[in-house]
């Protein structure tokens, strides 16, 4: 009896030793302090679009995800990366259904930076919950976040590959654009009935535009922490008159928004409009998505629009 127990114990020790050498317990720095994750989680729930993106890029299809804005399912660009297994819906970003998360019995939860303390307390009792530390918005945030998520998933290499693939693609695109003579100042705006909102130059998409050789500006209208400016007065529209104007719209058909903007004489007076260098883009992807897959999708957009 005693010998058997000893033997079992030995086997257990050996096994756990093996597991540890295969997958070290990792300590992650999160917004709510240090979180330990062991092994390679397979049952993952993502409560944030950027986490879903990073997780798919790392090769893990989450069991659950929240819906994207503008729909009752995951974002459009994500669809292409989903196999037959689709993540179950865990509610919307505004109301995370904690019971639905529990039902998936996850061993890892990847959450958005803006998780409330109360939600974190509950979620972290279900599984280790990784919340990226909040920081001022910066174009490179997505890399740090993707690395954190990748580390939690124990797929650091896959994430590094995905990130360097984005960097490489951006570099290629940059030289192609340079050869084609495309460059200059660019603004990303959203068109509202009263006028445009200028998007921050610190946005994810703006960072990618920078990487391919454009200079993204926000005319000093967006504060340090802001994502977009207030609705700009039409009298000051010339402030967004650069070499390129990216017109983000949340509609499927960006042309429609462009037509609406063209109804305004203040808009059609802009040089950039008269040179026809206005690019309607998908606002959902350009202003809210995050992660390596989204980066590739945005680079697709840039390539299609800017390369002659």
């Amino acid at each position, binding site marked *: 009896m005693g010998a058997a127990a000893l033997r079992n114990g030995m086997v257990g020790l050996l096994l756990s030793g093996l597991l540890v050498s295969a997958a070290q317990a990792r300590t992650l720095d999160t917004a709510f302090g240090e979180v330990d994750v062991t092994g390679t989680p397979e049952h993952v729930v993502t409560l944030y679009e950027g986490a879903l993106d990073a997780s798919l890029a790392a090769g893990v299809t989450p069991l659950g995800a929240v*819906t*994207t*804005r*503008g*729909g*009752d399912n995951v974002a459009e660009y994500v669809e292409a990366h989903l196999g037959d297994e689709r993540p179950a819906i865990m509610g*919307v*970003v*505004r*109301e995370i259904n904690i019971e639905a998360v529990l039902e998936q019995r996850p061993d890892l939860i990847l959450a958005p930076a803006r998780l409330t303390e109360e939600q974190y307390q509950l979620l972290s009792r279900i599984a280790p919950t990784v919340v990226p530390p909040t920081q001022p918005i910066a174009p490179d945030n997505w890399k740090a976040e993707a690395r954190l998520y990748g580390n939690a998933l124990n797929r650091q290499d896959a994430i590094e590959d995905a990130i360097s693939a984005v960097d490489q693609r951006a570099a290629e695109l940059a030289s192609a654009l340079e050869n084609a003579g495309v460059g200059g100042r660019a603004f990303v705006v959203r*068109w*509202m*009935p*009263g*006028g445009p909102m200028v998007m921050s130059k610190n946005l994810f998409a703006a960072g990618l535009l920078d990487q391919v050789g454009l200079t993204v500006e926000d005319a000093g*209208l967006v504060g340090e922490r802001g994502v977009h*400016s*207030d*609705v*700009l*007065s*039409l*009298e*000051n529209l010339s*402030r967004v008159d650069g070499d390129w104007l990216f017109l983000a*719209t*949340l*509609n499927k058909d960006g042309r*429609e*928004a462009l*037509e*609406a*903007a063209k*109804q*305004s*004489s*203040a808009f059609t*007076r802009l040089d950039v409009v008269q040179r026809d260098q206005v690019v309607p883009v998908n606002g*959902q992807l350009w202003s809210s998505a995050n992660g390596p897959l989204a980066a590739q999708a945005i680079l697709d957009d840039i390539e299609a629009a800017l390369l002659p």
Partner: protein
Amino acid sequence: MPLRVARQRTQMTLLLTALVAVSLVSLLIGAGETGPLRALAVLAGSQDSDASFVVWQLRAPRTLIGIVVGMALGVAGALLQAVSRNPLAEPGLLGVSAGAAFAVALTLVMGASAATLRISVAQLGALVGCLCVLSVTRVRGVGSDPVRLVLAGAAFSGLLSSLTSLMLLYDQRAADEIRFWVIGSLSGRRLDDLAAMLPSMLVAAVAVVLMARPLAALALGERAASGLGHHPGLIRWCVVACVALLVGGATAMAGPIAFVGLVVPFAARAMAGPDIRRTLWFCLPIGPLMVLAADMIARVAVAPSELPIGVLTALCGAPVLVSVVRARRLPSL
């Protein structure tokens, strides 16, 4: 009596002068780099193309629209208050804003985009909201309880905004865009919008002129009005139709702007006395004055961006609301 008439004439002259002055200033100042001096040069005939674009293409239309919106809301408020005999009856408190927001949310959820949305949707919503409150509280019955109409409006607005939230819960895109639609603004409105709304507003204006006398009779009481050969029920519904046309048109042009319909008749009554006909005349200059003044603050307060005018009118309208109820008794109309 002649003394009073003379005083009112002076007041009217002053108001009209003030309106001209404010309209002029509205052409001169803005959020942009075109300062008053440059704008003045344009008015004097200078060839500065940037400045003349700003003055004639941007500031002139919004000034014009501001004037029309102010008149429409002021007159609508005065009418509604006269017919309901309730100094608190204000279109903005009666579900107009909530109705407009609800209609916009509905169309957004059904796939439209804020950038391409036709303003008529908001107009329709505003109308339906206003009519709902008025019809459920039965315009006839509210005379006995002025607060009832306001409560009904507040409750109805609450219901509509909850339904709006329910739709927005599903649709994040709409949630993102609606935020910019629920507060009124004069920025970026075009003269086309004004032209589209003008016919229906003119119809309302003619109707108001025709109804002024019966309305004044109605103020003497139902019996007196009937004795003078008027039909109180008919008058009421005509007035409500006029209010709907005026408020709907104003909301379609500028979005929901609350409290103008409360403050303007309040001021007009203070000057004109109890006669509804004089009150209506006084509303015509006072309404635009208030809207233009609020719009100018909206333009310069956070330049180079702009504030929505709806916030400003709410800020200056609420104190008036309070002072109305602070009066020892609600003045009966």
